[in-house]
């Protein structure tokens, strides 16, 4: 019987503690129907190189652990089939602009630090009612898209402002901020708007839409950021109007 056809994976390798510079290793992986990049990486791990490092968990595109840079695009390795690339050749790298821990595993510390700055939690001054807070289905649907975020970091990694501005909050955190601002139950609109409208926030977004293209869950962070800009401008305008009328 003929050998099964193989795909070729060029994989980014770097151990900051030992290597001076990153390099790529090429592995040949037998093709099979529906083979995902994540499975191919496990195949390499088990049959060729046990020292390859990458993050993984659910393999069903809900945990956001295996976000990588595959053939020039942000993708979840578990959701990307090797056969999607007809050339049979793949280049697999870590998400750019994150510090590399080793190989494909990146350090998400800064990402989460910025995420925490926007107060990513519901703030309700009033004590919770005995049962649920009433919310119309329409109000619930208004934030349906933003709720889908799996915090994989793709949008953050793709954003040119993030690359150049160390403190820029980034698309994921800002989308989350909008998710709470648009939540009919939240009562911290003022505080949250002050955070996102500060020097590290929404006005640094140049609407390049890289984030929307990068998102594996098809969320459009730029849209959320635009909504924040509008809310922030309105708030400034109204406070100016109030001040000038008194």
């Amino acid at each position: 019987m003929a050998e099964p056809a193989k795909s070729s994976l060029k994989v980014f390798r770097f151990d900051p503690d030992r290597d001076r510079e990153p390099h790529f290793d090429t592995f040949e992986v037998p093709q099979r129907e529906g083979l995902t990049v994540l499975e191919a990486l496990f195949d390499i791990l088990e049959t060729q190189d046990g020292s390859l490092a990458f993050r993984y968990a659910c393999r069903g595109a809900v945990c956001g652990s295996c976000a990588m840079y595959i053939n020039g695009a942000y993708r979840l390795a578990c959701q990307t089939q090797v056969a999607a690339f007809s050339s049979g050749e793949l280049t697999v790298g870590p998400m750019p602009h994150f510090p590399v821990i080793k190989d494909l595993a990146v350090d998400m510390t800064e990402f989460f630090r910025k995420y925490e700055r926007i107060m990513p939690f519901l703030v309700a001054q009033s004590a919770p009612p005995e049962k649920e807070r009433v919310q119309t289905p329409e109000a619930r649907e208004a934030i349906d898209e933003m709720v889908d975020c799996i915090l994989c970091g793709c949008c953050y990694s793709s954003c040119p402002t993030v690359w150049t501005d160390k403190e820029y909050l980034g698309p994921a955190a800002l989308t989350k901020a909008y998710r709470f601002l648009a939540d009919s139950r939240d009562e911290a609109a003022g505080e949250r708007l002050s955070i996102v409208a500060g020097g590290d926030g929404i006005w640094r977004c140049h609407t390049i839409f890289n984030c929307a293209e990068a998102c594996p869950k098809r969320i459009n962070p730029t849209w959320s950021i635009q909504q924040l800009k509008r809310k922030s401008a309105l708030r400034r305008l109204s406070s100016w109007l109030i001040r000038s009328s008194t």
Partner: protein
Amino acid sequence: MILREAEVLVIGAGGAGLRAAIAADDMKAKALIISKSLMGKSGCTPMAEGGYNAAISKEPEDSVESHFEDTMASGGGLSNPDLVRILVAQAPRRLYDLEGFGALFSRGGGGLIAQRKMGAQSFARTCYAGDRTGHEIMMTLLEEVRRRDIEVLNYLLAVDLMTSGGRVCGALTYDIRHADFVLIQSKVTILAAGGGGKCWSVTTNSHQGTGDGYALAARAGALLCDLEQIQFHPTGMVYPDSVKGVLVTEAVRGEGGYLYNVTPQLQEAIDQNIRLKRGGDKPRRLDPEDFGAERFMCRYDPQRLELAKRDIVTRAIAREILEGRCSGSGGVVLSVVHLAPDLVRDRLSTTCKQFQDFASIDITLEPMEVAPTMHHVMGGAVIDEECRTSLKSLYACGEVVGGIHGGNRIGGNALAEGQVFGAIAGQMAAEEARAAGPANGDILRSGDEMARWFASKLGSGGGKSRPCHIKRGLQEVMTTRVGIVRDESGLREAADAIDNLEEEFQQVGVRDGRLPFDQDVIDYLEVRNMLPFSKLVARSALLRRESRGSHYRSDFPDSDEADFSGNIFALGEEVWPEKKWS
């Protein structure tokens, strides 16, 4: 080795673990959560789709009594009624907690939380957030943990519980990120380490679900029960191979999806659609009803049909497949083609994307191929009503606990269980921690010993066998011999095979072990947990010479009510039946 101290150590960062930490924080105890990956990403909670059961419906009027009866009836005589009573009574309150923390549940009339009906339930009792309920609950708990600034250590794999004088006083853990041991000394410990699906080759669980909690509890000397009760979810994906086992939520059937077996005409139509799509054309609308396919659940449970108890649907599907009424990939089909496409896209959006992205299937036009997949370990650590295990200063909550779901877990009861018992465990652990003196220092010596033992394994690999090979071998054995249909000879073979794998494992080392994210180390430490857990499952299954709940024996196909000997308990390597609550 690094040393840490905690008042309340929480092992596991899924739904139960985070809820426990929040409850401990409510009591002003300092909790420390350890997570095997990045917090919130590796447990089963974020992957749970269907929902959360709470008897809150007013129209029609549901009741906790009805929820109690449904849960007990499903449990096949193995559920501990005291624990089930707590589950059903507190599920609504804990649901409102989540809503108060910010969770966005889908809404129905009057802006109140909407509910859907899932299998084996008398009422529409399952609250949901579309079909990504677990993800929403997980995000909410993560947000609450961040709001409270509760400390979390990521990438810590629990190696063993540390005991001194019969009391659990912390845990030795391995830091995957920094390739170092971390010894955590605690006043009280909460085990919330989740399930063990990865001991089977086809499972809904994430890669991290390797039965760590059961093994940790067993090695420390805690009492376990019902380990033969393994739930195989009726519907997992079968195609393509790389997503085999990934959950297709029960909500699909809850929303009105039908199960069909596969006729040659249907197979031909499926193949034709594949060809169309390969050629870049749109697939044809394909309702299995038009191709002579049979809604086979009519034969197995004519009343409840697709919404029968999970074990019944699972065995029905397994039988259809075994008898050849299946697709080329070995599945039956689940179809929502007859439902309004808008409803499908709205209520089942995750399922739509899942099939589009992984299998290029538009579920509003084409049926989904599905087959059973290992889903939930219903057995686990025995706890009392305050989540105390049989060991002092060790509490447990979430999937790692046994005795609640008995022989068959109802869909929607696991998310509720995690919240209800998580909150109790956190509260009780905090109370004990406040009353306790300073942490016990003996742990240092035993932790050091363990770390030295492990160090002896480092660099000793490089032989033919690697930990991942033992893992694969074990998965093969558990899938073929300790699966949906079991018998005496198969189970004996499994027990022997596991013994052999244990022997082989003694010879296995770790190639390097000093690198971050070193898969050999992770595999090694996981296999060290998977083997003893799997062994207890096989031995418990051997001991139950009848069929009950999810444990089906082809050599004893009926339940033996006349000679019912109770639950099967496990302590160390011993297993025995006993009537404690059953």
